[in-house]
């Protein structure tokens, strides 16, 4: 980092002392150069297993400009009895003349099981009042999440992390009753949803949305939830009535009921895939039109067949965001509201086998 980090640390400390240290470091940075200004966008509380703190730090370092302005990492080690803390106030670089340099604050608090009962009183003083707060617990800890939700307006989850699709969808829906859910599994499908929406946006094709006859999604074996959310999105946006899909041994398959006809749904795991997420989406309409999107080099590969049977293929440019890009997008999305996730999630739940 071209800039400098101001660091404070203490063992056997208290939230008050940590908060005072934060304030003091900010005052010192400002005194050093008044073009250092603290970013004030978002608090993020990450509750993580201490042994994985480094891995989480690596993941967060990849999110670039989407870093929360104050990150509070609660690093959990069950047997720990003492509260230790480290505070960093980092700048992106020395301010150029007449330019500002943003300061971002990271607080790492190491705590144990004995602190869990009073976790709110530890985390509360460490977040910036009046800023929205995002909660993330990448290693599970559902009870802790429930406790900390009192501080947060949004919660970051990755439904692909749950090994069982039913548990993942149920968990997301239950969290959504208490906070806005940002689901990384949902965000990975954004480019796919954008392209399907765009494909059917020209006026003559909008009518064909009501005549979709089949949807096939191929996905990584551990990404069934991503496929279900995508199918759930189509079902909820197009008012399809959905019912449980059946596992036919190679895929989850079944029918949804549209206003004009049934829609054949097929969510097929592709064991050869190395990367989590979606691989391929095929949508067919009653006119014989077929639109297929698949992952490709430099963007999604579009394959179409028109009602006369003419086939075409081309690349729609777009860079892969990578997992850190998706995480960064998740942090950014916590400041927005997508009204289509919950209906998609609910539709996906009705399709659970």
């Amino acid at each position, binding site marked *: 980092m071209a800039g400098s980090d101001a660091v404070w640390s203490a063992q056997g400390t208290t939230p008050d002392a940590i908060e005072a240290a934060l304030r003091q470091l900010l005052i010192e940075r400002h005194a050093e150069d008044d073009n250092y200004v603290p970013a004030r966008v978002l608090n993020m509380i990450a509750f993580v297993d201490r042994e994985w703190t480094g891995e989480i730090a690596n993941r967060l370092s990849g999110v670039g400009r989407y870093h929360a*302005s104050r990150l509070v990492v609660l690093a959990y080690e069950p047997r720990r009895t003492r509260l230790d803390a480290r505070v960093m106030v980092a700048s992106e670089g020395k301010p150029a003349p007449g330019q500002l340099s943003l300061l971002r604050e990271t607080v790492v608090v190491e705590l144990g099981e004995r602190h869990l009962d009073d976790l709110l009183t530890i985390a509360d003083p460490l977040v910036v009042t009046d800023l929205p707060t995002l909660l993330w617990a990448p290693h599970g800890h559902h009870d802790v999440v429930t406790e900390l939700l009192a501080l947060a307006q949004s919660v970051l989850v990755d439904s692909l992390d749950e090994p069982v699709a039913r548990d993942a969808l149920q968990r997301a829906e239950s969290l959504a009753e208490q906070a806005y859910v940002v689901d990384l599994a949902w965000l990975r499908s954004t480019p796919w949803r954008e*392209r399907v*929406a765009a494909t059917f946006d020209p006026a003559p094709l909008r009518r064909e949305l009501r005549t979709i006859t089949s949807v096939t999604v191929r996905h990584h074996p551990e990404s069934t939830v991503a496929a279900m959310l995508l199918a759930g999105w189509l079902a909820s946006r197009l008012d399809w009535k959905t019912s449980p899909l059946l596992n036919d041994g190679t895929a989850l398959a079944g029918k949804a009921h549209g206003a004009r006809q049934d829609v054949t749904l097929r969510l097929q795991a592709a064991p050869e895939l190395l990367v989590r997420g979606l691989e391929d989406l095929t949508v067919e309409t009653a006119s014989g039109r077929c639109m297929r999107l698949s992952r490709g080099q430099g963007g999604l590969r579009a394959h179409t067949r028109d009602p006369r049977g003419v086939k075409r293929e081309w690349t729609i440019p777009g860079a892969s965001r990578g997992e850190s890009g998706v995480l960064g997008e998740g942090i950014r999305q916590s400041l927005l509201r997508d009204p289509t996730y919950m209906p998609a999630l609910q539709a996906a739940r009705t399709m659970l086998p």
Partner: protein
Amino acid sequence: VSVASGVESQPENPLVEGLERLPVAPTTLVIFGATGDLAKRKLLPALYNLAHEGALPGRFHLVGVSRKEKAHEDYREECEQAIRQFSRRTPDEDVLAALLEDIKYIPGEFDEDSVYTKLEQVLGKFEKDAGEQLNRAFYLSTAPNFFGLIVGKLGEHGLSQHEDAEVRVIIEKPFGTCMAEALELNRQVLSVFEEPQVFRIDHYLGKETVQNMMAFRFANGMFEPLWNRNYIDSVQITAAEDLGIGTRADYYDSAGALRDLIQNHMLQLLCHVAMEPPVSFTAEEVRNEKVKVLQAIPHPTGEDVPEIAVRAQYLAGNSGGEDVPGYLEEDGVPPSSTTETYAALRLEVDNWRWAGVPFYLRTGKRLARKVTEIAVTLKPVPHLAFSQEGSLGVQPNQLVLTLQPNEGVSLRLGAKIPGTRMIIRPVNMEFLYGTAFLSQSPGAYERLITDAMRGDATLFTRNDEVEAQWLICDPIVKAWAQTPGPLATYKAGSQGPQEAELLLREGDHWRAI
């Protein structure tokens, strides 16, 4: 599908709900002046960044048209170099390859019919391959004297309309160099295209901070009750640059500060400050309100000009610690040039809201610092109970909206100096965009190209806006042309000419640049 008044409307696309990026219809973009500076520095990098983000239409083709003879492959190579050099992010090789793969180039003079015949063929081939009609967007990134010619040729070759698809023309500034030219250009353009097909670029309008002014004014209840002549004393709009004219002597010497910035960008800023809340944020409603502001500004007469306008040229001086030449010593500038490098105006908006409030506009090259800001000074409080002795005094509140470089809003307030005495001094309450948002603003051209391809004209200038802008500036241009010199001067790196003080109403001051 709903049917009303016998007209069948299109069904909604329910898949669009919740998406941040709205779909853009399949489009072929044709850049006239494809090898020019603007194309290389702004348009091609903007297109790459849109491609990187997956924000181009699902079907997108690019055609370059320019005078230089070269093959498609050579042009693709030029595009690649420009993108690598000027893109705001390092290109992803796969995305870059996908974007460049299909670019076509048509060489020729803009008055040659063969250029347009070839263009028709290329456009037709793209559509045949796609199996659908593609929207067409013609971007005129040429010298302004070609605008009318190209538009005329597009019309002659039947390229201004396309069955079952939209055709749009995007026109770079300057839109005329005087009222007569602007009128003539509008006449030429509108004899071929309908107004809704025409997108006149003012890249200032693509800047996030300019767009945010409307959010600032109309999404916050605390400012609008004060936003009138009863509470506001004056408005000062500054667009100062610390740089000189660089390599742009040809353009700049024929334009000058008034045409370069005030006639378009700064009058747009004034409109954003002074406009009434639009009924909705549609292109037509927003532009209707802006036109009303321009129409409320009295057109100066020749006699008014010395009272309301000041021009000046920079002399040699010092900028950023370096000695720099004066304007007349710059490369390519005629030694007898009377082109202004600084212009300041005092305008009034004669309507119910703003009558009597001066709007000061100033712009210049080689000033003390680069800053673009709008400063709104409120009227002083009616009675001061505090002693002014021993303090900087109680100064009127001032709201400053900074567009660059540190985008933000600052409010000057009076506050008590800590101590036993009640002494007041001004303090600033600051809000900085950079500290409050995670997102990076897209480049202005990325936003404007996308909007033009989507047919959203909110951030483009309408024909009546251009004409209303010229009605204000044209008398000044003419008066200055009739009194060619000597011009007032200012030292490079300074605050501007002393003469600018003469524009100010008694008690008003220019803010320090």
